């Protein structure tokens, strides 16, 4: 708690500083939510603002980190701290939750797939906020989706919360151009995810050889089916993909994180129990914070740097209003 208070204190100072810096710079990028949660929009910008579901209050933090408790409690507290699920999920909306269910090999303890309680709680919260339907899906690369959904434990928790596990099918993919892309000019994306009213991105923080870490930005690769193409220039391509698909909310499951042999896992010695949940509307900021759990800086991850220069989000954590919650386990 003391740490949290200290960081909040430091934050106030930084906020004032960064506000000055930002005002003096001509931001070529629009729609970066500022640390106080409001959206800064450069004067004269002709880019239309996406509709917010409820006006965020200036007291809402930019990023919330919950630590120490049961996954369900950590999720509840962090979403509440962000302003409540009602802020992201309008009544009657169609919500898609995209966890990381990459293989059908191991249970959640192996940290290859998102924690089932995390996903289940998000389903509950979305329904409580008035969602019409909540669909949960991913496209595993190893094993069948049905098997992966079952082994990960996610199916059980989603069904118990009233949500629906959806098997992604080839016919659901649509080809989309990515305007302004640098490398991935078009992709084949799952329409259920692409056209969802609300997309909640729930990655698990894991080791990955090429991207170094797979977090929120990389988790969106599960929405497309021409993934092989991304590897050649992964940092640029991930940023390209993230300009096409923007999740409403990113919740990083760092209850258990996979330190090596990712993304498939299978060795409990590679798993580190960090009991942390990171939530933010800003996918880049959430990923930046999660990098710290692996002893990395946001600058170490090429796609975060690329994402921040493209205006997808912020890597300057020191300038953000971060609320840290310690949940008693």
């Amino acid at each position, binding site marked *: 708690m003391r740490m949290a208070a200290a960081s909040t204190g430091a934050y106030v100072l930084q906020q004032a500083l960064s506000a000055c810096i930002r005002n003096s710079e001509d931001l070529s990028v629009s729609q970066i939510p500022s640390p106080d949660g409001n959206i800064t929009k450069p004067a004269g910008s002709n880019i239309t603002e996406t509709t917010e579901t409820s006006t965020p209050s200036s007291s809402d933090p930019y990023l919330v980190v919950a630590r120490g408790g049961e996954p369900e409690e950590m999720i509840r507290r962090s979403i509440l701290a962000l302003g409540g699920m009602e802020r992201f999920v309008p009544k009657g909306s169609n919500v898609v939750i995209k966890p990381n269910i990459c293989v059908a090999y191991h249970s959640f303890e192996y940290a290859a797939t998102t924690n089932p309680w995390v996903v289940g709680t998000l389903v509950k919260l979305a329904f409580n906020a008035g969602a019409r339907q909540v669909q949960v899906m991913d496209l595993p690369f190893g094993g069948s989706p049905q098997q992966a959904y079952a082994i990960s434990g996610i199916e059980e928790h989603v069904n118990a919360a009233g949500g629906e596990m959806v098997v992604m099918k*080839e*016919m659901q993919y649509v080809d989309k151009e990515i305007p302004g892309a640098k490398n991935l000019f078009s992709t084949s994306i799952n329409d259920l995810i692409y056209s969802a009213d609300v997309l909640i991105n729930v990655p698990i923080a894991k080791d990955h050889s090429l991207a170094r870490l797979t977090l929120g930005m990389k988790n969106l690769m599960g929405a497309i089916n021409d993934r092989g193409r991304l590897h050649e220039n992964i940092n640029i391509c991930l940023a390209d993909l993230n300009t096409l698909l923007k999740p409403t909310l990113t919740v990083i499951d760092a209850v258990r994180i996979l330190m090596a042999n990712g993304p498939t896992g299978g060795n409990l010695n590679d798993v580190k129990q960090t009991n942390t949940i990171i939530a933010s509307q800003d996918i880049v900021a959430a990923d930046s914070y999660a990098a710290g759990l692996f002893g990395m800086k946001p600058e170490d991850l090429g796609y975060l740097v690329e994402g921040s220069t493209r205006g997808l989000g912020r890597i300057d954590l020191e300038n953000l209003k971060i609320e840290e919650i310690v949940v008693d386990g």
Partner: protein
Amino acid sequence: MGEPKQGIPSKGLISPKTWRRLRIAVQIIVFLAFLLIFILTPQQKFSPSIISLPVRLSPLVMVGSSIAARVLLPGIALAIVFLLFSILCGRTWCGWLCPLGSIIEVFSFKKSREFRLTNGWRKIKYVLFFLLVSAAVFQNLALLSLDPITILYRTFTISIWPVFSLIVQRAENLLYQISSLRPAVNSFDNFIRPGLFSNIQIFFYQSVLIFCLFLLVIGLNYFARRFWCRYICPMAGMLGLISRISIIKRRVTEECISCGKCEQVCQTATVESINNYRSDPAECTLCMDCIASCPNRSNEISIQPLPSSKMPYDPSRREALISVGAAAVGAALINIEPEPVNTSSFLIRPPGVDEEEFLNQCVRCGECMRVCPTNAVQPAMFESGVSGFWTPIIVSRIGYCDYSCNQCGQICPVQAIPPLPVEEKRTTPIGSAYIDQNRCIPWADHRDCIVCEEMCPTPTKAITLTQHQSGWKNSGVLLPVVNRDICIGCGICENKCPVTGQAAIQVHVLKKY
């Protein structure tokens, strides 16, 4: 029964026409049961002993495989029951149960010309059966590919079902374009996959060839009704031999008016006027057509403990011996193939298989190909030499061996693929991956690609990445390297390798040091 009735034809509890209807009903039920079990096979809801029932019910498969493997297979009891059943009532198996026989009967051409083939043709099935058994003694089971059950199961798995699957998928894709139908198409798809059809569009090598054999079996009906069953089927040969001593058989009574109706309807043309409308129990399938067509009930199926009289086309001892000799020579010829020619480096077998034992056991039924969720198991051509055709091999470029799946071993009706628990299967190597550095993207083109490493499912990755130091235009590129002590040859790397065409990492057979 047994003694000729005078005047009034014998009246059993069931009339002759009802017997015939009963036979057809049994055929339909058995065929539907076969189809149902076939369709439900990948569901994993039923025990493998039920799912593999169709193949285990084939006496020929069980006997052949048991001889070659020198063990009494656990499922053989049922097959022995059928053999004893043949001693009791002849080739009832062919006429009442065999699902391939039922299809052949349905597709019999009404006006088939009945080319008057000499009865000598009937020898073929006996010769094939002798060849099969002798080859089995020499541990070669290639001829079991002619077993009626394996023909049917294999054709359904490899040729017919993938076509159905494709048609359904195309229809779904088409209907999905209409946005109002999307929810319906989605729920329909959820209903049929993975229960009825695989998640992925399945494809098998040799589907055309295997379908051609099936077409041939049916098409031969053009020349004579039940041509296959009459002249060729080795199962018919086996059951025919036993049926010569069968107890219940057809006979013609003295009331016969020689109207010739029974000769017209007889499916296997064993009722012949030149033979006073008598029939050979080794040829008669007890289909009851003759009985149902008889105007005065002058032929009957009854208990007659005496063996049947010898027929001119019965296999002679000399022919049997020649068959044994031919099989010996054939098996020897196959075995003298030098090893490097004999085996392909891509001869990847399902997990836990020992190649030599496997060839003694595999009956080529295709059950493993049916259950494989990734479509990895494919019928071999000559990867295992000429005698190994249609045995299962894993073609990783088509499908990888799923780290969490052990279905092929569970289903195998003759346990040619051992039923390994998942944990054991995960540590059982089936091959090893080799990188082609001349085509691998990072090795050859100095560009990033780590797909094989990313996909590698072993807890400690069998594919690791090293950094090339100097002299490269892009020296930071990570290069995949296979650790052969860890690699299990699952082939997901080969399957997902983004290089077009043949993968730049391929699974080859394990080195024998």
